[in-house]
């Protein structure tokens, strides 16, 4: 039992540290993209090979499944339908919110401060 708890603690701590390291790295990556140290191309667009995917997929390493799921083929980056009244809204942009909120690490602050 103790061994299991120890393994769980180590795993959770490792994941937290990994997340922290990733969060620390994002502002630096964002700056490098902005200054041109990381080349993400000059053509803006959502298509593969253009800036959007070059930034999010190649430079930041976001998985395809972070934004896309099957079953929503006609649309772009539809993640999920809302499941209950508290989560109303057509799609979940939670993954974008993580970096693009007002005090987030992304350069482009798309969203405002989180209102409670």
């Amino acid at each position, binding site marked *: 039992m103790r061994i299991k708890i120890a393994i769980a603690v180590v795993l959770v701590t490792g994941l937290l540290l990994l997340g922290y390291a990733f969060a620390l790295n994002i502002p630096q990556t964002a700056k490098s993209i902005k200054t041109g140290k990381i080349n993400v191309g000059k053509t*803006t*667009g*959502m298509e593969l090979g253009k800036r*959007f995917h070059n930034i999010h997929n190649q430079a930041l390493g976001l998985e395809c499944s972070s934004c896309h799921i099957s079953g929503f083929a*006609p*649309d*772009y*980056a*539809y993640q999920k*339908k*809302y*499941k*209950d*009244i508290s989560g*109303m*809204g*057509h*799609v*979940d*942009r939670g993954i*974008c*919110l993580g970096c*693009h*909120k*007002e005090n987030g690490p992304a350069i*482009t*602050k*798309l*969203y*405002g*401060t*989180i*209102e409670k």
Partner: protein
Amino acid sequence: MKFGMVIDTKRCFGCRACVAACKTENIVQPGNHWNFVLEHEQGKYPNVSRIFTPMNCMHCENPPCMKACPEKAISKNEHGVVMIDYDKCKGRKYCIAACPYGVIHFIDRGKAFYPDGQKIPYETLPIEAKHPLHRKKPGITEKCTLCWHRIEKAIKEGKKPGSDYDTSPACIKVCPANARYFGDLDDPDNEVSRLIAKKRAIQLNKEYGTRPQVFYIV
């Protein structure tokens, strides 16, 4: 004046009259919907109910689509209406990705209203004959304009926007359940402001800090 909407999900029974009215009023591209209704069930059998949530552009006070657009083609006017400049839009779709409500759509090339590909009479009109908000073309994005062409006309004619069918967005007065309300959010005596206060209407996805101007009674 800052225009907004209140949608009463307790009254909406999902007839989609608003969807049809919007489609015809704004000649919305086949496959796209400026107005659509989401459905979901709640409860456990046998005590279940179905909730209908009509969706359209929230005309956010802090619109992420506007910030995301690399062409600066999206703007918010002095009355709080968020609109796309079809001349500036290059169809990059960043606005679609940024919108947490999924209400912006891309106009695909080669989609026709009639099955045989023939143009509808409105499409054959010269571009100057159309309102700037109806001068859409394939390869750009589109979304609800809060029927700005109607509101703008009402303001010019000295009428109160929202007072009758012609001065309201097309989706409002067609609602047979009176589930949709439109008016000036800045006026505390306006019906929308009173409803927001009295019924404790909520904004969707509040956590994004977008501050939508469409409120929902749930």
